[in-house]
C-alpha cells in the first residue's frame, strides 16, 4: 500500500501519522517545520538559570528585545518569549487579513502547540451532540492519547464537566497560592456551587509527574514558558520524534504545501510544494492526502486548490474560536509572602460554570503568578514605576488570573476566504471574517458576574475595570470550516474525515469540528486524529 501524504506536524498530524505507522501504513509528512533553540542548562531552575547564563537579558528578552513589552504598544499582548518566536514566524508570502478576527498561525514543527499551556479537557456527550459520534466512541482514543503524551489530573468536582478516562496520572504538587485557593474552596464549596454554579478543581495537564521514554518528570523549574528543558510538558514534536523511528516515515521539513491538484473525477493527484523560505515549486504525486495543517492553513490549501482546479473562488463558513476573557485577581491574604519560584508555571487549577444548555459550559483556567517577567505588569499599573515595583514585589505571591473560555457555534457569517493577489507576483491573501453572536455580551456579563462573586467567596478581589475581553483569534482554538456532516454537502467531510468533494482527501484537524466547546481543543484534536486513522485506513 502506498504511503499517505500528511501535511502538518501539529497535534493532529503527528498523532494521525503515528497511528498509521503503528498499523504498518507508510507516511510521507510535508511540514514547514521551523525549529527553535534548545533550552539551555537543563538542570537549572529559573533563578539559577539567570545566574548561569552569560547573557540573561539576551535569553529572556532576545537580542532584538522581542520579549520587551512597552507601554503604549498596539495590539494584543501575548507575552511570548524569544524562545517561542519561531512558532509564529511566517513564510515570506503568507499574507493574511482579519476582519473582526486576529489570526495566529504557525509554521513550526509541532505547530501552535509548541506554545500551548498543556490543558487537556475531553469533550462530553452534550458537547459532542453535533458530532457524528459520542463520548463512548471517543473515550478509547482519549485514553490512547493520554497514554502517549502523559496526562495528570484528579477525579474531583470538575469531573462532572470532563469525563474521566484511563491514562490520567497523579497531579502535580500545587504551588502555595493554588494550594491555599483549593483549601479555601473546600470551605466554601457548597455555597459557590449552589449560588453561582461554580466548581473548582485540578487542571488536567499534559505533563509528566514520572519520567518515561526519554522524558523527565516535572522538576518544578519554573521555566515552562521558555520551553521545558526536560520534556515533561508535552509538545507535539516529541511525537514527531517517535514517528521518525519508523522506517515507513518520510519527513520533509522546511517545505510549504501550496495546494493540491485533482482530476476531473475529483481525485487528488498531486501536491504542489516549495521550500519554506522561497524557491522553486514542484509537485509530489499523491495517492491519499491528509490535511492536518491547522484550521487556517488547511483552509488556505483547500481554497487555493479549489480556485486552481475549478476556476471559482470559494468561502468556507463556520469559522469558530473560543472567546477568552481575562480576569486578574488579588488574594490579599497572601500579600507580603514570598512567591515560590520552583513551581509549575501554568494553570494548576480550573473552574467550571454550569450552564443551560449544558454544552454552553464556561471553562476557566486559574493561573497563580509564579515565575514571570515583571515589566509587562508594572507597565500597566496606575502608579509611577518605582511604586509599581514596590506593589509588584509585595503582592506578587497574591496575584492570579482566570482565563475564561466561552463556547462557539458555526455561523456562515464567520468565514475564511482567499482574496486574489493584489498584482503579479503578489501572494493571495487569506481573509478571516468574524462576527460575534448577538447574545454574546449578555453571556459574558452573566459569567463574569458569577466568576467575580465566586472569587470573592474564595478570598480574592477583582479590581474594577481589570477584566480584559480578548479579540477573537487570540485563543487560537480555530475550528469548523470543513465540518463533519452526515449529509454529503459541499465543503464537508464524513465521520472518517473523508472529504465529500474529493474521494482521496482527508481532513484530520480542527476544521472538521461542527461545534466548539469552551475547552482547549488540543486533546480532542489528537484523539480525533487517532480515531480517523483507525477508522478510515
Amino acid at each position, binding site marked *: 500500500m502506498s504511503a499517505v501524504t500528511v501535511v502538518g506536524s501539529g497535534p493532529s498530524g503527528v498523532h494521525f501519522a503515528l497511528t498509521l505507522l503503528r498499523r504498518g501504513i507508510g507516511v510521507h509528512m510535508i511540514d514547514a517545520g521551523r525549529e527553535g533553540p534548545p533550552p539551555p542548562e537543563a538542570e537549572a531552575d529559573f*533563578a539559577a538559570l*539567570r*545566574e548561569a547564563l552569560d547573557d*540573561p*537579558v539576551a*535569553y*529572556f*528578552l532576545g*537580542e*532584538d*528585545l522581542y*520579549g*520587551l*513589552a*512597552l*507601554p*503604549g*504598544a*498596539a495590539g494584543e499582548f501575548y507575552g511570548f518569549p524569544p524562545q517561542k518566536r519561531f512558532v509564529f514566524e511566517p513564510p515570506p508570502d503568507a499574507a493574511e487579513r482579519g476582519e473582526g478576527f486576529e489570526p495566529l498561525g504557525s509554521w513550526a514543527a509541532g505547530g501552535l502547540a509548541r506554545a500551548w499551556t498543556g490543558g487537556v479537557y475531553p469533550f462530553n456527550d452534550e458537547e459532542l451532540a453535533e458530532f457524528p459520534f459520542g463520548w463512548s466512541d471517543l473515550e478509547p482514543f482519549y485514553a490512547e492519547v493520554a497514554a502517549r503524551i502523559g496526562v495528570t489530573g484528579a477525579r474531583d468536582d470538575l469531573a462532572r464537566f470532563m469525563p474521566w478516562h484511563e491514562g490520567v496520572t497523579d497531579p502535580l504538587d500545587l504551588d502555595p497560592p493554588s494550594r491555599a485557593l483549593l483549601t479555601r474552596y473546600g470551605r466554601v464549596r457548597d455555597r459557590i456551587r449552589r449560588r453561582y454554579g461554580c466548581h473548582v478543581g485540578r487542571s488536567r495537564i499534559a505533563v509528566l509527574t514520572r519520567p518515561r521514554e526519554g522524558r523527565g518528570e516535572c522538576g518544578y523549574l519554573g521555566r515552562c514558558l521558555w520551553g521545558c528543558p526536560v520534556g515533561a510538558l508535552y509538545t507535539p514534536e516529541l511525537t514527531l520524534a517517535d514517528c521518525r523511528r519508523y522506517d515507513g516515515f518520510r519527513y520533509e521539513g522546511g517545505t510549504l504545501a501550496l495546494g493540491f491538484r485533482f482530476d476531473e473525477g475529483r481525485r487528488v493527484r498531486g501536491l504542489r510544494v516549495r521550500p519554506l523560505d522561497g524557491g522553486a515549486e514542484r509537485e509530489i504525486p499523491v495517492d491519499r492526502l491528509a490535511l492536518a495543517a491547522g484550521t487556517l492553513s488547511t483552509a488556505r490549501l483547500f481554497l487555493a486548490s479549489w480556485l486552481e482546479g475549478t476556476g471559482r473562488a470559494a468561502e468556507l463558513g463556520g469559522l469558530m474560536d473560543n472567546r477568552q476573557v481575562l480576569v486578574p485577581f488579588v488574594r*490579599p*491574604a497572601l*500579600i*507580603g*509572602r*514570598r*512567591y515560590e*519560584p520552583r513551581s509549575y508555571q501554568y494553570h494548576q487549577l480550573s473552574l467550571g460554570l454550569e450552564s443551560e444548555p449544558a454544552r454552553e459550559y464556561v471553562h476557566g483556567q486559574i493561573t497563580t503568578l509564579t515565575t514571570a*517577567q*515583571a*515589566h509587562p505588569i*508594572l*507597565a500597566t499599573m*496606575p*502608579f*509611577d*514605576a*518605582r*511604586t509599581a*515595583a*514596590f*506593589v*509588584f*514585589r*509585595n*503582592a*506578587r*505571591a497574591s496575584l492570579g488570573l482566570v482565563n475564561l473560555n466561552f463556547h462557539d457555534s458555526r455561523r456562515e457569517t464567520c468565514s475564511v476566504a482567499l482574496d486574489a493577489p493584489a498584482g503579479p507576483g503578489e501572494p493571495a491573501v487569506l481573509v478571516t471574517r468574524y462576527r460575534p453572536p448577538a447574545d454574546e455580551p449578555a453571556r459574558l456579563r452573566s459569567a463574569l458576574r458569577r466568576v467575580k462573586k465566586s472569587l470573592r467567596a474564595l478570598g480574592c478581589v477583582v479590581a474594577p475595570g481589570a477584566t480584559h475581553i480578548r479579540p477573537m483569534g487570540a485563543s487560537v482554538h480555530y475550528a469548523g470550516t470543513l465540518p463533519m456532516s452526515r449529509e454529503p454537502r459541499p465543503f464537508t467531510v464524513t465521520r472518517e474525515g473523508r472529504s465529500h468533494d474529493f474521494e482521496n482527501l482527508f481532513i484530520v484537524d480542527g476544521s472538521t469540528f461542527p461545534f466548539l466547546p469552551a475547552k482547549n481543543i488540543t486533546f480532542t484534536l489528537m484523539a480525533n486524529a487517532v480515531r480517523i486513522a483507525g477508522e478510515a485506513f
Partner: protein
Amino acid sequence: MSANGVAGAPAPERSVLEVECDRFARYLIGEPPRPYVRDWYVKGHAVGPGRFAPDGGLDATLLSLSAWRGVPLRALDMTGRVLAPGGALRRKLVLLVAILECAPGSAERFEAPDHGSPAGFFLALAGRGLVSVAALALGLAVVAVARLGGVGARGAR
C-alpha cells in the same frame, strides 16, 4: 508615527544614555546599575531607536526635564503615567526595569517583599500614595512652566 515612536530616528550618544541609565537606575532600585545593565540599556536604544524617541511636545518636555537633577524623577514619571502613559520616558523606564529584572544582582528588587503582612504593605502603600500624589502635583507644575518656557520644543533624546 507609530506608538513606538519615529521609525528610523537616530539613537542618542552612548555617554548621554549611560548618564540617563545611572539616573533612572538610582530612581528605580536606589543604586547605580552594573556595567552589564548599562551596556544593555545603550544596546536597547540601538536595537530600536525609534521605540524610545518622544512622540510629541509633552513627551519631549518630560524627557528633557528627566536630565535635570533639580526635578525629582518620580514627579516626571508620575506626570508621564497620567498624561503620557505610552510616552518615551515611560518606555525608557520600562526598558530599564526589563533589563534589571533579568540581570543577576538586581532581579531580587522585583521579587523580595518588603513587608511580611498585608497590613504593613497597605500602610506603606498609603504613604507612597501620598508621596505619588504630591509628586504628581509637583510634576504638573514643573511641566507647565517648562512648556511655557519651551523646554523640549526642539525635541529631545
